[in-house]
């Protein structure tokens, strides 16, 4: 198998946005990864559209992709390339929608309801395409930016799980797609080494939605790319800036800049215990608070013997569920309640709220209020970052 370089993956993730008419499908297919010697016509490909009203009309999630066999450099390999929302279609506020929900995907794993709806609408066409290849496939490459990256992640999971092909995922500035159950499962099914998640540290989209949504591969930092903006910035989300960031670099070179140890338990505890002021406009704060939320919620769940699998699928909002879990933790032994209290104090400090004098003041109602304000703040920071462009 010939692994596409970061440059090639970025070119395809970028080019797919420019496929707006039938004639432009042909232009997309003129990319070198699809070219064949002595064959002027592009290889077999299928033009995918998400369902919209009728079978081929665009819906508000605006999912869109192309699947194609590779050219001479990628014989018997398949490319699935997806794009995110464009100005030509309705602007789905897919990240900050207050109604973000979780649903089970076709494999019974908890994922973002909007991303899943978008991908599911394309599954019939993808199935049809793979059927036409009669199993003559050695590798599948799933590629996308932003919403397209989220859909590519679901596509990679579906292909690896259902078709059993060797599958490779390449995303740029993708949001979180599913909960830890999905993330662990897809990391195992697709293979962590086959997952290339490229992100700028200050890209606000990659930090949303907040926990319980997580990034795959599980427990791996992905391909962190330096961005020139010190604070959260919409500029850092643009595909053109990702293209520039990875140009002429290898995947190995993109793995050379590890993040601070946001997932290390001792580091999380040190952050929670520190007296350092927190700044909600800093990307560092959002990474720490996300890791700390995961750490503390799991601590409570383990102590209470509560299974988190599927716990977030209900009529309640995610903030309500987490509030319930944390409130349970407040009434537990000091080894658990201490960390719940520290987490809440840290969040309230970042929100500019007066911190409670005792643990007893941290009622479920107050925790729910704080978490809702945290979510609103997260959305506001993302909006501010983008409005500053």
């Amino acid at each position, binding site marked *: 198998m010939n692994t596409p370089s970061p440059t090639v993956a970025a070119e395809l993730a970028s080019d797919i946005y420019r496929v707006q008419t039938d004639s432009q499908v042909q232009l997309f297919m003129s990319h070198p990864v699809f070219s064949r010697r002595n064959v002027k016509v592009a290889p077999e490909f299928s033009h995918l559209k998400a369902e919209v009203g009728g079978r081929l009309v665009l819906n508000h999630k605006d999912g869109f992709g192309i699947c194609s066999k590779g050219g001479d450099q990628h014989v018997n390999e398949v490319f699935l390339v997806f794009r995110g929302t*464009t100005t030509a279609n309705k602007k789905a506020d897919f990240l*900050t929608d207050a109604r973000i929900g979780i649903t089970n995907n076709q494999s019974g794993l908890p994922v973002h309801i909007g991303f899943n709806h978008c991908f599911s609408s394309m599954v019939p066409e993808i199935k049809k395409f793979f059927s036409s290849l009669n199993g003559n496939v050695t590798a599948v490459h799933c590629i996308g930016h932003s919403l397209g990256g989220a859909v590519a992640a679901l596509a990679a999971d579906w292909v690896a799980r259902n078709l059993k092909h060797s599958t490779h995922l390449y995303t740029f500035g993708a949001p979180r797609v599913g909960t830890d159950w999905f993330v662990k499962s897809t990391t195992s099914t697709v293979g962590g080494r086959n997952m290339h998640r490229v992100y700028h540290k200050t890209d606000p989209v990659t930090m949303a939605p907040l926990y319980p949504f997580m990034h795959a591969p599980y427990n791996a930092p992905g391909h962190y790319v330096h961005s020139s903006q010190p604070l959260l910035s919409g500029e850092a989300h643009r595909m053109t800036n990702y293209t520039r960031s990875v140009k002429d670099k290898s995947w190995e070179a993109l793995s050379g800049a590890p993040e601070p140890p946001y997932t290390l338990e001792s580091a999380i505890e040190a952050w929670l215990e520190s007296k350092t002021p927190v700044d909600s406009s800093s990307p560092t704060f959002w990474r720490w608070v996300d890791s700390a939320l995961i750490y503390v919620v799991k601590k409570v769940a383990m102590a209470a013997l509560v299974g988190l699998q599927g716990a977030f699928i209900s009529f309640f909002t995610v903030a309500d569920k987490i509030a319930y879990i944390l409130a349970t933790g407040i009434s537990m032994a000091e080894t658990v309640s201490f960390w719940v209290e520290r987490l809440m104090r840290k969040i309230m400090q970042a929100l500019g709220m007066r911190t409670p004098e005792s643990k007893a003041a941290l009622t479920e109602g107050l925790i729910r209020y704080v978490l809702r304000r945290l979510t609103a703040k997260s959305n*506001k920071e993302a909006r501010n970052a983008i409005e500053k462009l």
Partner: protein
Amino acid sequence: MSLFFGGDKSEIVIFSPLDGRLLYKGEPVSNADIKLWIKWKDTKGESFHYKTDEKGYFSIPKKTDLYKDSPLAQLVITQEITVEYKGESHLIWTLSKTDGRLNVEFGGEPKNLICELAEDLNTIRTDEVLMGTRCNWEI
């Protein structure tokens, strides 16, 4: 609820001015109908109609619009130009650009632009543009 889409609107060029000459096998295409279609803010788009003169010259003016920037919705401006000639429709220009600056389609201000109906579509790929065209120009 839409929290990602704020900010002020600014002017973008949805079509950079195109002045040139239309030929078929080297001969001027006179009085031909030219249709420009631009799509960027909805799925329907908008059409504009022009004609070549006796010597095949044509002029399509600049088109601008107002745009509220948002990285969550990629700016994509699509343009297609078709020419009706001897009862047939010829696509001479199909392009999508992700940048609203003037002349980004050409890589600079174009000069001596000539479109030849008998040529195949030539593919041009840059960071901002993916296009197929039967036109050639100098910068």
